Protein backbone atom coordinates (compact mmCIF):
# COMPACT_ATOMS: atom_id res chain seq x y z
CA UNK A 1 0.00 0.00 0.00
CA UNK A 2 2.84 2.29 0.90
CA UNK A 3 4.38 1.75 -2.50
CA UNK A 4 1.13 2.52 -4.29
CA UNK A 5 1.12 5.73 -2.32
CA UNK A 6 4.66 6.44 -3.44
CA UNK A 7 3.75 5.50 -6.98
CA UNK A 8 1.01 8.14 -7.11
CA UNK A 9 3.35 10.64 -5.57
CA UNK A 10 5.96 9.69 -8.18
CA UNK A 11 3.47 10.00 -11.02
CA UNK A 12 2.63 13.55 -9.95
CA UNK A 13 6.28 14.50 -9.61
CA UNK A 14 7.03 12.73 -12.89
CA UNK A 15 4.25 14.66 -14.63
CA UNK A 16 5.96 17.88 -13.65
CA UNK A 17 9.28 16.60 -15.01
CA UNK A 18 7.47 15.49 -18.14
CA UNK A 19 6.02 18.95 -18.78
CA UNK A 20 9.45 20.51 -18.41
CA UNK A 21 11.18 17.80 -20.44
CA UNK A 22 8.85 18.48 -23.38
CA UNK A 23 10.29 21.99 -23.66
CA UNK A 24 13.85 20.72 -23.77
CA UNK A 25 13.05 18.11 -26.34
CA UNK A 26 10.96 20.39 -28.59
CA UNK A 27 13.69 23.02 -28.77
CA UNK A 28 16.25 20.31 -29.39
CA UNK A 29 14.00 18.99 -32.15
CA UNK A 30 14.04 22.22 -34.15
CA UNK A 31 17.41 23.73 -33.21
CA UNK A 32 19.56 20.77 -32.06
CA UNK A 33 20.79 22.32 -28.86
CA UNK A 34 19.83 22.18 -25.19
CA UNK A 35 18.20 25.35 -23.97
CA UNK A 36 19.61 25.43 -20.46
CA UNK A 37 17.64 28.58 -19.69
CA UNK A 38 14.51 26.44 -19.80
CA UNK A 39 14.88 25.59 -16.09
CA UNK A 40 14.74 29.28 -15.24
CA UNK A 41 11.64 29.83 -17.31
CA UNK A 42 9.78 27.55 -14.93
CA UNK A 43 11.05 29.65 -12.03
CA UNK A 44 9.76 32.78 -13.73
CA UNK A 45 6.45 30.96 -14.20
CA UNK A 46 6.20 30.30 -10.48
CA UNK A 47 7.05 33.92 -9.66
CA UNK A 48 4.57 35.19 -12.21
CA UNK A 49 1.87 33.17 -10.44
CA UNK A 50 3.13 34.45 -7.09
CA UNK A 51 2.75 38.08 -8.14
CA UNK A 52 -0.48 37.59 -10.08
CA UNK A 53 -2.21 35.63 -7.32
CA UNK A 54 -3.09 38.50 -4.92
CA UNK A 55 -4.66 40.61 -7.66
CA UNK A 56 -6.58 37.83 -9.36
CA UNK A 57 -7.65 36.23 -6.09
CA UNK A 58 -8.77 39.65 -4.94
CA UNK A 59 -11.31 39.63 -7.74
CA UNK A 60 -12.32 35.96 -7.86
CA UNK A 61 -11.81 35.12 -4.21
CA UNK A 62 -9.05 33.00 -2.68
CA UNK A 63 -8.61 29.44 -3.92
CA UNK A 64 -11.27 29.85 -6.60
CA UNK A 65 -11.05 27.67 -9.70
CA UNK A 66 -11.60 30.47 -12.27
CA UNK A 67 -8.99 32.53 -10.45
CA UNK A 68 -6.52 29.64 -10.55
CA UNK A 69 -7.18 29.11 -14.26
CA UNK A 70 -6.48 32.77 -14.97
CA UNK A 71 -3.29 32.67 -12.91
CA UNK A 72 -2.11 29.62 -14.84
CA UNK A 73 -3.07 31.19 -18.14
CA UNK A 74 -1.32 34.51 -17.61
CA UNK A 75 1.79 32.90 -16.12
CA UNK A 76 2.00 30.63 -19.16
CA UNK A 77 1.54 33.64 -21.43
CA UNK A 78 4.29 35.60 -19.69
CA UNK A 79 6.69 32.67 -19.96
CA UNK A 80 5.77 32.06 -23.59
CA UNK A 81 6.71 35.67 -24.36
CA UNK A 82 9.90 35.37 -22.32
CA UNK A 83 10.88 32.20 -24.17
CA UNK A 84 10.29 33.84 -27.55
CA UNK A 85 12.25 36.91 -26.44
CA UNK A 86 15.22 34.85 -25.23
CA UNK A 87 15.36 33.01 -28.53
CA UNK A 88 15.20 36.22 -30.56
CA UNK A 89 17.82 38.08 -28.55
CA UNK A 90 20.24 35.36 -27.52
CA UNK A 91 19.98 32.41 -29.91
CA UNK A 92 18.80 33.79 -33.25
CA UNK A 93 21.94 35.86 -33.90
CA UNK A 94 23.94 32.64 -33.46
CA UNK A 95 21.76 30.52 -35.76
CA UNK A 96 24.59 29.68 -38.16
CA UNK A 97 27.31 29.35 -35.55
CA UNK A 98 28.55 26.06 -34.11
CA UNK A 99 26.06 24.46 -31.72
CA UNK A 100 28.58 24.67 -28.88
CA UNK A 101 28.46 28.46 -29.09
CA UNK A 102 24.69 28.39 -28.70
CA UNK A 103 24.91 25.88 -25.87
CA UNK A 104 27.29 28.08 -23.91
CA UNK A 105 25.08 31.08 -24.61
CA UNK A 106 22.17 29.10 -23.17
CA UNK A 107 24.12 28.49 -19.98
CA UNK A 108 24.90 32.20 -19.91
CA UNK A 109 21.23 33.10 -20.30
CA UNK A 110 20.39 30.67 -17.49
CA UNK A 111 22.92 32.23 -15.10
CA UNK A 112 21.80 35.69 -16.15
CA UNK A 113 18.18 34.92 -15.27
CA UNK A 114 19.08 33.22 -11.99
CA UNK A 115 21.30 35.95 -10.68
CA UNK A 116 19.34 38.88 -12.04
CA UNK A 117 16.26 37.52 -10.33
CA UNK A 118 18.18 37.17 -7.08
CA UNK A 119 18.81 40.90 -7.04
CA UNK A 120 16.73 42.56 -4.38
CA UNK A 121 15.25 44.89 -6.97
CA UNK A 122 13.82 41.89 -8.85
CA UNK A 123 12.63 38.88 -6.82
CA UNK A 124 15.30 38.86 -4.12
CA UNK A 125 17.16 35.78 -2.96
CA UNK A 126 15.08 34.77 0.02
CA UNK A 127 12.53 31.99 -0.13
CA UNK A 128 8.93 33.16 -0.22
CA UNK A 129 5.92 31.07 0.68
CA UNK A 130 3.85 30.20 -2.38
CA UNK A 131 0.16 31.12 -2.13
CA UNK A 132 -2.51 28.43 -2.22
CA UNK A 133 -4.07 28.56 -5.67
CA UNK A 134 -6.52 25.69 -5.53
CA UNK A 135 -8.16 24.16 -2.46
CA UNK A 136 -6.09 21.16 -1.39
CA UNK A 137 -7.78 18.16 0.18
CA UNK A 138 -6.82 14.66 1.11
CA UNK A 139 -8.87 12.11 -0.71
CA UNK A 140 -9.22 8.66 0.85
CA UNK A 141 -9.50 5.54 -1.31
CA UNK A 142 -9.71 2.86 1.35
CA UNK A 143 -6.34 3.02 3.06
CA UNK A 144 -4.89 5.12 0.28
CA UNK A 145 -4.54 8.82 0.92
CA UNK A 146 -4.13 10.94 -2.18
CA UNK A 147 -3.61 14.67 -2.23
CA UNK A 148 -6.08 16.39 -4.52
CA UNK A 149 -3.20 18.49 -5.82
CA UNK A 150 -1.46 15.37 -7.10
CA UNK A 151 -4.62 14.39 -8.94
CA UNK A 152 -4.92 17.86 -10.45
CA UNK A 153 -1.31 17.69 -11.61
CA UNK A 154 -1.90 14.29 -13.19
CA UNK A 155 -5.12 15.26 -14.94
CA UNK A 156 -3.86 18.61 -16.19
CA UNK A 157 -0.68 16.98 -17.47
CA UNK A 158 -2.68 14.35 -19.35
CA UNK A 159 -4.84 17.06 -20.91
CA UNK A 160 -1.80 19.11 -21.90
CA UNK A 161 -0.09 16.06 -23.40
CA UNK A 162 -3.20 15.32 -25.45
CA UNK A 163 -3.41 18.94 -26.58
CA UNK A 164 0.27 18.98 -27.51
CA UNK A 165 -0.09 15.75 -29.43
CA UNK A 166 -3.02 17.21 -31.32
CA UNK A 167 -1.08 20.37 -32.19
CA UNK A 168 2.02 18.51 -33.34
CA UNK A 169 0.29 15.72 -35.24
CA UNK A 170 -2.88 17.28 -36.60
CA UNK A 171 -2.38 20.98 -37.23
CA UNK A 172 -0.56 22.71 -40.05
CA UNK A 173 1.84 24.51 -37.73
CA UNK A 174 2.58 21.24 -35.91
CA UNK A 175 3.31 19.49 -39.19
CA UNK A 176 5.58 22.41 -40.07
CA UNK A 177 7.35 21.93 -36.71
CA UNK A 178 8.02 18.31 -37.60
CA UNK A 179 9.18 19.35 -41.07
CA UNK A 180 11.59 21.95 -39.67
CA UNK A 181 12.82 19.43 -37.15
CA UNK A 182 13.60 16.95 -39.91
CA UNK A 183 15.22 19.35 -42.35
CA UNK A 184 15.09 23.13 -41.88
CA UNK A 185 16.38 23.89 -45.38
CA UNK A 186 13.80 21.73 -47.07
CA UNK A 187 11.14 23.32 -44.85
CA UNK A 188 12.30 26.78 -45.94
CA UNK A 189 11.94 25.69 -49.57
CA UNK A 190 8.26 24.93 -48.84
CA UNK A 191 7.76 28.58 -47.96
CA UNK A 192 7.82 27.91 -44.22
CA UNK A 193 9.23 30.83 -42.27
CA UNK A 194 11.64 28.97 -40.02
CA UNK A 195 11.80 31.83 -37.52
CA UNK A 196 8.04 31.70 -36.95
CA UNK A 197 8.15 27.97 -36.28
CA UNK A 198 11.07 28.35 -33.89
CA UNK A 199 9.31 31.15 -32.01
CA UNK A 200 6.17 29.03 -31.80
CA UNK A 201 8.20 26.12 -30.44
CA UNK A 202 9.75 28.28 -27.75
CA UNK A 203 6.36 29.72 -26.83
CA UNK A 204 4.81 26.29 -26.51
CA UNK A 205 7.67 24.81 -24.48
CA UNK A 206 7.89 27.84 -22.20
CA UNK A 207 4.15 27.86 -21.53
CA UNK A 208 4.36 24.20 -20.46
CA UNK A 209 7.35 25.06 -18.27
CA UNK A 210 5.36 27.84 -16.58
CA UNK A 211 2.60 25.40 -15.68
CA UNK A 212 5.16 22.88 -14.45
CA UNK A 213 6.83 25.62 -12.42
CA UNK A 214 3.57 26.49 -10.68
CA UNK A 215 2.88 22.82 -9.95
CA UNK A 216 6.39 22.45 -8.61
CA UNK A 217 5.96 25.53 -6.43
CA UNK A 218 2.69 24.11 -5.08
CA UNK A 219 4.63 21.10 -3.75
CA UNK A 220 7.55 23.11 -2.42
CA UNK A 221 7.91 24.94 0.87
CA UNK A 222 8.49 28.16 -1.06
CA UNK A 223 9.89 29.72 -4.18
CA UNK A 224 13.24 31.41 -4.86
CA UNK A 225 15.19 32.29 -8.02
CA UNK A 226 17.29 29.12 -8.03
CA UNK A 227 14.28 26.80 -7.65
CA UNK A 228 14.33 25.81 -11.33
CA UNK A 229 17.77 24.23 -11.30
CA UNK A 230 16.87 20.91 -9.64
CA UNK A 231 13.68 20.07 -11.55
CA UNK A 232 15.21 21.52 -14.72
CA UNK A 233 18.23 19.25 -14.52
CA UNK A 234 16.04 16.22 -13.87
CA UNK A 235 13.72 17.08 -16.72
CA UNK A 236 16.72 17.47 -19.02
CA UNK A 237 17.86 14.01 -18.01
CA UNK A 238 14.31 12.74 -18.49
CA UNK A 239 14.34 14.13 -22.03
CA UNK A 240 17.61 12.33 -22.76
CA UNK A 241 16.41 9.07 -21.19
CA UNK A 242 13.21 9.24 -23.23
CA UNK A 243 15.12 9.96 -26.42
CA UNK A 244 16.00 13.61 -27.04
CA UNK A 245 13.85 15.17 -29.75
CA UNK A 246 11.08 12.63 -29.17
CA UNK A 247 7.93 14.07 -27.56
CA UNK A 248 6.34 10.89 -26.15
CA UNK A 249 9.85 9.95 -25.02
CA UNK A 250 10.20 13.13 -22.98
CA UNK A 251 6.87 12.52 -21.28
CA UNK A 252 7.74 8.90 -20.57
CA UNK A 253 11.23 9.81 -19.34
CA UNK A 254 9.77 12.37 -16.94
CA UNK A 255 7.29 9.89 -15.50
CA UNK A 256 9.94 7.15 -15.19
CA UNK A 257 12.31 9.52 -13.41
CA UNK A 258 9.61 10.80 -11.02
CA UNK A 259 8.43 7.30 -10.13
CA UNK A 260 11.93 5.93 -9.55
CA UNK A 261 12.76 8.93 -7.41
CA UNK A 262 9.61 8.58 -5.30
CA UNK A 263 9.93 4.83 -4.83
CA UNK A 264 13.65 4.99 -4.04
CA UNK A 265 12.88 7.81 -1.63
CA UNK A 266 10.42 5.54 0.18
CA UNK A 267 12.73 2.54 0.60
CA UNK A 268 13.68 2.14 4.23
CA UNK A 269 17.32 2.87 4.96
CA UNK A 270 18.25 4.14 1.50
CA UNK A 271 15.96 7.14 1.16
CA UNK A 272 18.94 9.45 1.48
CA UNK A 273 20.41 7.83 -1.59
CA UNK A 274 17.33 8.22 -3.72
CA UNK A 275 19.03 10.48 -6.24
CA UNK A 276 21.95 8.09 -6.45
CA UNK A 277 19.61 5.18 -7.08
CA UNK A 278 17.51 7.10 -9.58
CA UNK A 279 20.52 8.20 -11.59
CA UNK A 280 22.18 4.78 -11.45
CA UNK A 281 19.05 3.32 -13.05
CA UNK A 282 19.06 6.04 -15.69
CA UNK A 283 22.69 5.37 -16.51
CA UNK A 284 21.80 1.69 -16.89
CA UNK A 285 18.96 2.57 -19.26
CA UNK A 286 21.28 4.67 -21.37
CA UNK A 287 23.93 1.95 -21.40
CA UNK A 288 21.48 -0.43 -23.02
CA UNK A 289 19.53 2.12 -25.04
CA UNK A 290 21.94 4.96 -25.85
CA UNK A 291 19.34 6.74 -27.98
CA UNK A 292 16.88 6.72 -25.08
CA UNK A 293 13.75 4.70 -24.37
CA UNK A 294 11.84 5.84 -27.46
CA UNK A 295 14.68 7.41 -29.42
CA UNK A 296 15.81 5.88 -32.66
CA UNK A 297 19.46 5.46 -33.31
CA UNK A 298 20.36 7.62 -36.27
CA UNK A 299 23.54 7.32 -38.23
CA UNK A 300 25.22 10.67 -38.78
CA UNK A 301 24.94 11.72 -42.39
CA UNK A 302 28.30 12.36 -44.00
Amino acid sequence: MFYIQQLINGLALGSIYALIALGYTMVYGVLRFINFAHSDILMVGAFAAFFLAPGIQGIFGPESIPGALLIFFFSALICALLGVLIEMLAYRPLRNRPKLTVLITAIGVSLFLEFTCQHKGVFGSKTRPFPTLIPAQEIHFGELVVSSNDLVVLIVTLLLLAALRFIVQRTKIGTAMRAVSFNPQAAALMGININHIISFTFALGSALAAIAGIFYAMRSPGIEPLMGIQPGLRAFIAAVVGGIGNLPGAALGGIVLGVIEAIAGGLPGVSNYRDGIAFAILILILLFRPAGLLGKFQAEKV
Partner: protein
Amino acid sequence: MLEVKNLQVNYGVITALHGIDLTVEAGSIVTLIGANGAGKTTALRAVSGLERCAGGSITYDGQPIANLAPHEIVRRRLCHVPEGRMVFANLTVLENLQMGAYLVKDKQAIAREMAYVFNIFPRLKERERQVAGTLSGGEQQMLAIGRALMSRPRFLMLDEPSLGIAPILVKTIFEKIQEINRDHGITILLVEQNANLALEISHRGYVIETGRIILSDTSESLRKNPDVRKAYLGG
Protein backbone atom coordinates in the same frame (compact mmCIF):
# COMPACT_ATOMS: atom_id res chain seq x y z
CA MET B 1 11.63 35.29 -66.58
CA LEU B 2 14.80 34.65 -64.60
CA GLU B 3 17.90 36.64 -65.22
CA VAL B 4 21.11 35.96 -63.35
CA LYS B 5 23.94 38.42 -63.88
CA ASN B 6 27.52 38.06 -62.70
CA LEU B 7 26.42 35.91 -59.74
CA GLN B 8 29.16 35.17 -57.23
CA VAL B 9 28.94 32.82 -54.28
CA ASN B 10 31.68 32.07 -51.78
CA TYR B 11 32.01 29.29 -49.23
CA GLY B 12 34.30 30.90 -46.70
CA VAL B 13 37.47 31.70 -48.61
CA ILE B 14 36.58 29.41 -51.51
CA THR B 15 34.78 30.94 -54.46
CA ALA B 16 32.17 28.54 -55.81
CA LEU B 17 30.73 30.78 -58.53
CA HIS B 18 32.94 33.33 -60.26
CA GLY B 19 30.22 35.51 -61.68
CA ILE B 20 27.83 33.51 -63.86
CA ASP B 21 25.21 34.80 -66.28
CA LEU B 22 22.08 32.83 -66.98
CA THR B 23 18.78 33.65 -68.62
CA VAL B 24 15.65 31.53 -68.56
CA GLU B 25 12.80 32.52 -70.87
CA ALA B 26 9.25 32.08 -69.63
CA GLY B 27 7.76 28.75 -70.68
CA SER B 28 11.05 27.08 -71.56
CA ILE B 29 13.10 24.26 -70.12
CA VAL B 30 16.69 25.32 -69.57
CA THR B 31 19.37 22.99 -68.36
CA LEU B 32 22.60 23.60 -66.56
CA ILE B 33 25.06 20.77 -67.12
CA GLY B 34 28.51 20.20 -65.76
CA ALA B 35 30.68 17.88 -63.74
CA ASN B 36 30.49 17.24 -60.02
CA GLY B 37 31.51 20.29 -58.04
CA ALA B 38 31.23 22.66 -61.02
CA GLY B 39 28.76 24.88 -59.15
CA LYS B 40 25.41 23.71 -60.54
CA THR B 41 23.79 23.10 -57.18
CA THR B 42 25.29 26.27 -55.74
CA ALA B 43 23.70 28.29 -58.53
CA LEU B 44 20.24 26.92 -57.74
CA ARG B 45 20.73 27.35 -54.00
CA ALA B 46 21.70 30.97 -54.52
CA VAL B 47 18.56 31.62 -56.58
CA SER B 48 16.28 30.04 -53.97
CA GLY B 49 17.90 31.93 -51.11
CA LEU B 50 19.72 29.05 -49.43
CA GLU B 51 23.15 30.51 -50.20
CA ARG B 52 24.22 34.11 -49.83
CA CYS B 53 25.11 35.90 -53.03
CA ALA B 54 28.42 37.71 -52.65
CA GLY B 55 27.93 39.71 -55.82
CA GLY B 56 25.88 40.12 -58.97
CA SER B 57 22.13 40.18 -59.34
CA ILE B 58 19.21 37.82 -59.66
CA THR B 59 16.09 39.20 -61.30
CA TYR B 60 12.85 37.26 -61.36
CA ASP B 61 9.80 38.69 -63.12
CA GLY B 62 11.61 42.03 -63.22
CA GLN B 63 12.12 42.06 -59.45
CA PRO B 64 15.49 41.70 -57.69
CA ILE B 65 15.40 38.59 -55.48
CA ALA B 66 19.04 38.07 -54.51
CA ASN B 67 19.49 37.34 -50.80
CA LEU B 68 15.79 37.23 -49.97
CA ALA B 69 14.80 34.59 -47.40
CA PRO B 70 13.82 31.27 -49.02
CA HIS B 71 10.19 31.56 -47.94
CA GLU B 72 9.97 34.99 -49.61
CA ILE B 73 11.15 33.44 -52.85
CA VAL B 74 8.64 30.59 -52.66
CA ARG B 75 5.96 33.22 -52.12
CA ARG B 76 6.86 34.54 -55.60
CA ARG B 77 6.07 31.03 -56.87
CA LEU B 78 9.65 30.16 -57.68
CA CYS B 79 10.16 26.70 -56.26
CA HIS B 80 13.26 24.55 -55.83
CA VAL B 81 13.38 20.74 -55.71
CA PRO B 82 16.72 20.26 -53.98
CA GLU B 83 19.43 17.75 -54.67
CA GLY B 84 18.92 14.52 -52.78
CA ARG B 85 15.15 15.15 -52.77
CA MET B 86 14.99 16.15 -49.10
CA VAL B 87 11.50 14.78 -48.58
CA PHE B 88 10.38 14.85 -44.96
CA ALA B 89 11.05 11.21 -44.16
CA ASN B 90 9.23 11.50 -40.83
CA LEU B 91 6.02 12.79 -42.44
CA THR B 92 3.49 10.86 -44.50
CA VAL B 93 3.25 11.36 -48.24
CA LEU B 94 0.06 13.36 -47.71
CA GLU B 95 1.68 15.57 -45.05
CA ASN B 96 4.66 16.17 -47.35
CA LEU B 97 2.29 17.37 -50.06
CA GLN B 98 0.43 19.55 -47.56
CA MET B 99 3.72 21.16 -46.56
CA GLY B 100 4.34 21.89 -50.23
CA ALA B 101 1.12 23.90 -50.20
CA TYR B 102 2.14 25.72 -47.01
CA LEU B 103 1.62 29.18 -48.50
CA VAL B 104 -1.53 28.32 -50.44
CA LYS B 105 -4.55 29.49 -48.45
CA ASP B 106 -7.26 28.47 -50.93
CA LYS B 107 -8.48 24.97 -49.93
CA GLN B 108 -9.97 24.29 -53.36
CA ALA B 109 -6.72 25.19 -55.06
CA ILE B 110 -4.89 22.76 -52.76
CA ALA B 111 -7.35 19.99 -53.62
CA ARG B 112 -6.93 20.74 -57.33
CA GLU B 113 -3.14 20.63 -57.14
CA MET B 114 -3.25 17.43 -55.13
CA ALA B 115 -5.48 15.82 -57.75
CA TYR B 116 -3.03 16.92 -60.46
CA VAL B 117 -0.06 15.51 -58.55
CA PHE B 118 -1.84 12.20 -57.99
CA ASN B 119 -2.78 12.19 -61.64
CA ILE B 120 0.78 12.47 -62.90
CA PHE B 121 2.23 10.31 -60.10
CA PRO B 122 -0.44 7.67 -59.34
CA ARG B 123 2.12 5.85 -57.21
CA LEU B 124 1.93 8.65 -54.64
CA LYS B 125 -1.83 8.19 -54.33
CA GLU B 126 -1.31 4.51 -53.52
CA ARG B 127 1.12 5.46 -50.79
CA GLU B 128 -0.45 8.63 -49.44
CA ARG B 129 -0.67 7.34 -45.83
CA GLN B 130 2.83 5.91 -45.87
CA VAL B 131 5.72 7.64 -44.12
CA ALA B 132 7.92 9.16 -46.83
CA GLY B 133 11.07 7.55 -45.45
CA THR B 134 9.74 4.16 -46.54
CA LEU B 135 9.44 5.14 -50.21
CA SER B 136 11.96 4.05 -52.83
CA GLY B 137 14.36 6.61 -54.28
CA GLY B 138 12.25 7.09 -57.38
CA GLU B 139 9.07 7.47 -55.39
CA GLN B 140 10.78 10.01 -53.16
CA GLN B 141 11.79 11.96 -56.26
CA MET B 142 8.17 11.91 -57.44
CA LEU B 143 7.14 13.13 -54.01
CA ALA B 144 9.75 15.90 -54.07
CA ILE B 145 8.47 17.09 -57.45
CA GLY B 146 4.84 16.66 -56.41
CA ARG B 147 5.47 18.58 -53.21
CA ALA B 148 6.98 21.42 -55.21
CA LEU B 149 3.99 21.45 -57.57
CA MET B 150 1.70 21.87 -54.55
CA SER B 151 3.07 25.38 -54.13
CA ARG B 152 1.64 26.18 -57.58
CA PRO B 153 4.99 27.29 -58.98
CA ARG B 154 5.37 29.34 -62.12
CA PHE B 155 9.06 28.54 -62.13
CA LEU B 156 10.53 25.25 -61.02
CA MET B 157 14.17 24.46 -60.38
CA LEU B 158 15.07 20.78 -60.33
CA ASP B 159 18.42 19.60 -58.99
CA GLU B 160 19.58 16.19 -60.25
CA PRO B 161 16.20 14.47 -60.48
CA SER B 162 17.91 11.36 -61.90
CA LEU B 163 20.30 10.93 -58.97
CA GLY B 164 20.18 7.51 -57.37
CA ILE B 165 17.06 6.36 -59.18
CA ALA B 166 16.36 3.13 -61.04
CA PRO B 167 16.88 3.76 -64.82
CA ILE B 168 13.31 2.81 -65.66
CA LEU B 169 12.00 5.50 -63.32
CA VAL B 170 14.42 8.10 -64.64
CA LYS B 171 12.67 7.92 -67.97
CA THR B 172 9.25 8.33 -66.36
CA ILE B 173 10.38 11.28 -64.30
CA PHE B 174 11.87 13.09 -67.30
CA GLU B 175 8.66 12.54 -69.23
CA LYS B 176 6.74 14.03 -66.32
CA ILE B 177 9.04 17.04 -66.26
CA GLN B 178 8.23 17.69 -69.92
CA GLU B 179 4.56 17.18 -69.20
CA ILE B 180 4.60 19.67 -66.34
CA ASN B 181 6.27 22.21 -68.59
CA ARG B 182 3.86 21.61 -71.46
CA ASP B 183 0.55 21.28 -69.60
CA HIS B 184 1.03 23.84 -66.88
CA GLY B 185 3.33 26.20 -68.71
CA ILE B 186 5.74 26.00 -65.79
CA THR B 187 9.18 27.32 -66.66
CA ILE B 188 11.90 24.86 -65.69
CA LEU B 189 15.55 25.20 -64.82
CA LEU B 190 17.06 21.74 -64.69
CA VAL B 191 20.41 20.81 -63.25
CA GLU B 192 21.70 17.41 -64.37
CA GLN B 193 24.78 15.27 -64.53
CA ASN B 194 23.03 13.10 -67.05
CA ALA B 195 23.64 15.59 -69.86
CA ASN B 196 22.19 13.32 -72.52
CA LEU B 197 18.77 13.24 -70.97
CA ALA B 198 18.84 16.87 -69.95
CA LEU B 199 19.71 18.13 -73.43
CA GLU B 200 17.07 15.89 -74.93
CA ILE B 201 14.16 17.51 -73.09
CA SER B 202 15.44 21.06 -72.79
CA HIS B 203 15.30 24.02 -75.14
CA ARG B 204 18.49 25.67 -74.06
CA GLY B 205 21.58 24.59 -72.18
CA TYR B 206 24.41 26.12 -70.20
CA VAL B 207 27.66 24.32 -69.54
CA ILE B 208 29.34 25.18 -66.27
CA GLU B 209 32.92 24.36 -65.33
CA THR B 210 34.58 25.23 -62.01
CA GLY B 211 32.22 28.05 -61.24
CA ARG B 212 32.14 29.61 -64.71
CA ILE B 213 29.69 29.29 -67.59
CA ILE B 214 31.86 28.20 -70.50
CA LEU B 215 29.20 27.64 -73.13
CA SER B 216 25.56 28.35 -73.80
CA ASP B 217 23.49 27.46 -76.80
CA THR B 218 20.28 25.76 -77.86
CA SER B 219 20.18 22.20 -76.56
CA GLU B 220 20.16 20.88 -80.09
CA SER B 221 23.39 22.65 -80.99
CA LEU B 222 25.00 21.60 -77.72
CA ARG B 223 24.20 17.98 -78.47
CA LYS B 224 26.07 18.34 -81.75
CA ASN B 225 28.97 20.30 -80.32
CA PRO B 226 32.08 18.07 -80.46
CA ASP B 227 33.55 19.47 -77.25
CA VAL B 228 30.34 18.88 -75.35
CA ARG B 229 29.99 15.41 -76.84
CA LYS B 230 33.48 14.54 -75.75
CA ALA B 231 33.26 15.97 -72.25
CA TYR B 232 29.69 15.26 -71.26
CA LEU B 233 27.93 12.97 -73.68
CA GLY B 234 30.38 10.10 -73.76
CA GLY B 235 31.94 10.81 -77.16
